[in-house]
């Protein structure tokens, strides 16, 4: 049987301000994951961080070790690779005060 492979759009045209978290994704069937983070416009968010988180139950969260910078332009792409994540994944970000990040985040699982 061919390997399962799925792309989930976890943030589409969402306006991020301050501390944000994407909706929880249950993905225990997969063994590897990549978050791709793009911006569709908005402000240039220098020094803004984004990181993957894992959870025992979809309600309590801890950093998964994968982190990076939010892309600063529409042509940049940030990729966070995650493995050994159990059953749950989400993405968190901190957007600098007074700025807005227009997010497009996809989660690629297989």
């Amino acid at each position, binding site marked *: 049987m061919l390997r*399962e492979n*799925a792309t*989930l*759009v976890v943030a*589409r*045209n969402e306006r991020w301000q301050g501390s944000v978290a994407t*909706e*929880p*994704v*249950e*993905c*225990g*069937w997969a063994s590897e994951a990549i978050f791709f983070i793009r911006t*569709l416009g908005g402000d240039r968010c220098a020094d803004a961080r984004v990181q993957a988180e894992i959870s*025992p*139950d*979809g*309600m309590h969260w801890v950093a998964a070790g994968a982190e990076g910078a939010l892309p600063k332009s529409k042509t940049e792409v940030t990729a966070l690779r995650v493995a050994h994540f159990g*059953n749950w994944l989400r993405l968190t970000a901190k957007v600098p005060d007074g700025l807005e990040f227009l997010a497009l985040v996809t989660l690629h699982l297989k």
Partner: protein
Amino acid sequence: MTVTPDDLTAAIRRGMTLANPQLSKFDPLPRILAFDDFDRGHCGWSQLVGNYEGSLDTILPGYRELNGPMLSSISHWDGGTHGSIDGTYALKVPTRARRDSQAVAIKRLTFREPGPIRLEFYMTFKPEANELVLSDRDIKSVGFLLDLQTGDQSGNGAERVMPHLRYLNARDGDLLQKWQFKPGSASFSDIGDSSDTVSHFHLGDEGWQDVPGGGQRLCYNEIATKVNWHYIRFDFDLASMTAQRLQCNDRVFDLAGFDSLRMPAMKNLWCMLNVAMFVETATDKRAFLYLDSVCLSGDF
């Protein structure tokens, strides 16, 4: 007594269906159009995205934050993995943790024979178990719809028809527990500047009517993490574009007064046969609809 080839075919088909552990819990019409067991993946159930043109800002507000489906082992903090009916995975449709948030899973097909179809599925619904209370009033509704359009040769009979049914579980802290349908027409909005795209939001709270005798108490169980599955069957005739039967577990409901959302045919939806499942939360807590499995069949 004369046994015809058709009789033999029907008997063999019925015997094979009943002997198949996955299919024998359904009563499909002769032709199975889709059988979706989510231990085999998402099976073509995807996120509903509103229509847009030029910018995603043109998506109507009701469609902007619809969550999509995912494969779930139905695992909980207190009891571990619940699993699906006959395996590990179910299709989970989760709302956001905001009152009236909705989520939709949709499967997009077309039909080749405008005749009877039957949608059968097993479903259950639960709130996110983030409180040590029963939480049975935290889910507003779960439901399903078909999005149908006649073929391109249907002439004056051309129309788009969208039968909607929901189980209105609770609102404002009150258990309502009844089936409703949504008749009427649709109000379209232009999307973008080219006149190519329109959109209408049909999942709102307005326009629902009670199915006569449609009150039904379901097995919610006694805590938020105990899950029982419910059988749903909906028969629809694509020739007359009328609903024939709604069944949930042991109850069959009177659809004599039922009607669908009806609107003029659209230029790019001929023979459309879409099936969508939806869930809505009543509180600032995520609501989850689970499916396992779904069988769509036709009589041709």
